């Protein structure tokens, strides 16, 4: 199928974007890399009357280290963020997740802001945002507001962004230099759409863990923190028995839906397996344990 007709506008400056959104509201849709939006338009699942293209807009493409966090302009291409030395040093979990975001033709165009604003349930960066408590800066005619990841993602393709607003910036907290970070996922084929994935952030000394965040994707309509597994890891550390218990807790606390690609039971099993592998890695032991 072909997209329904729409009007196209490519503003050069942010105030123009804000003005256009205020004028057109829910008739308009912002396009970033287009790698998720255009398929939906081609299938006519989405039929915006006005398409506001951010690809020509100045000042939306940057990565800046600002003390406690890395700020990403929403139009930062995923391939640029993935290769960025700044990201690899201060926010390795973001770079690790981007290794999974699809083939090079997609990743060269897809953006950091686009995937977060689109909020697909099996997109990688939302899971990282949930794990690290990233902050989304949303801008509209009424000004800017900051929304934490936990409140930002509200379900399938649904976020806290109102129709007159757009995602202006994303702030990922800087990871501690000796923290363990890991992103892993299982998909039907290499570089294909994920079935399930797990983002792990962990600070430890020896086998004693003092901070842990585990975010699973593909088990609900938005990424979820594995709170029971987290609290077990905090209490019991990374010993073999503790890891086994945490993995079992993860399996039991998620409530996934079956789909064409995987049953609920399979997803439940795999999230435990991914967690076990990651925690064993965090403890510096062999993954064959």
């Amino acid at each position, binding site marked *: 199928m*072909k*997209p329904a007709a729409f009007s196209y506008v490519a503003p050069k400056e942010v105030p123009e974007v804000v003005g256009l959104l205020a004028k057109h509201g829910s008739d308009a849709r912002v396009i970033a890399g287009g790698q998720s939006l*255009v398929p939906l338009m081609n*299938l006519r699942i989405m039929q915006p009357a006005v398409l506001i293209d951010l690809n020509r807009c100045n000042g939306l493409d940057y990565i800046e280290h600002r003390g406690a966090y890395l700020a990403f302009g929403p139009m930062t291409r995923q391939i640029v963020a993935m290769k960025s030395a700044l990201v690899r040093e201060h926010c390795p979990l973001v770079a690790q997740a981007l290794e999974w975001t699809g083939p090079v*033709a997609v990743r060269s165009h897809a953006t950091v802001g686009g995937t977060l604003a689109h909020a697909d349930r099996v997109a990688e960066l939302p899971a990282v945002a949930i794990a690290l408590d990233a902050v989304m800066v949303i801008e509209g005619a009424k000004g800017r507001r900051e929304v934490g990841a936990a409140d930002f993602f509200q379900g399938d393709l649904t976020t806290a962004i109102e129709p007159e607003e757009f995602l202006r910036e994303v702030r990922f907290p800087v990871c501690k230099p000796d923290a363990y970070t890991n992103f892993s996922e299982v998909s039907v084929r*290499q570089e294909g759409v994920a079935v399930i994935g797990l983002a792990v952030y962990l600070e430890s000394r020896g086998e004693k863990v003092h901070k842990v965040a585990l975010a699973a994707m593909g088990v609900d309509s938005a990424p979820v923190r594995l709170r029971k597994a987290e609290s077990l890891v905090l209490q019991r550390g990374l010993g073999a028995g503790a890891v086994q218990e945490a993995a079992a807790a993860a399996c039991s606390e998620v409530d996934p839906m079956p789909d064409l690609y995987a049953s609920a039971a399979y997803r439940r099993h795999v999230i435990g397996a991914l967690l076990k592998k990651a925690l064993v890695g965090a403890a510096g032991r062999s993954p064959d344990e």
Partner: protein
Amino acid sequence: MSDEAVAIELTVNGTRMQAQAEPRMLLADFIRHRLHLTGTHVGCAHGACGACTVLVNGQPARSCLMFAVQAQGAEVMTVEALETPEGLSPLQEEFRNHHALQCGFCTPGMLISAHALLSENPSPTQQEIRKALAGNLCRCTGYNTIVHAVEATARRIRIQPA
């Protein structure tokens, strides 16, 4: 603002051109129906198969996931540009030599993705080749012959730089 055609200016395979395109016209359809460059194939039309892959400003892109109006000012390269005055390019020849195509539908996208890889990395490992081609689906070959063709091209380029 309206949904009427807008003027665009872009470079396709080295030729600078001006054209009109309705906003909803996909770059893939512009290439095929306006420019009659039918080497670029449209398979799934939603970014899953990679048959429509072209280079936009040197980067591989799904031309079904981009509107022609977004290519304003861009340099687009399609599979037609691979051919040399002497005939097939080394990459195309190695596809033929290694039986890297059967029905040929995915081949333009495969060639463009492989060309992009070799332009950036003339000595890829087999894993790098597989990763670079992972966004291109082929239902005939089972992929191994395609990987072999790219490996053979890399060997050839190393011996005799193009």
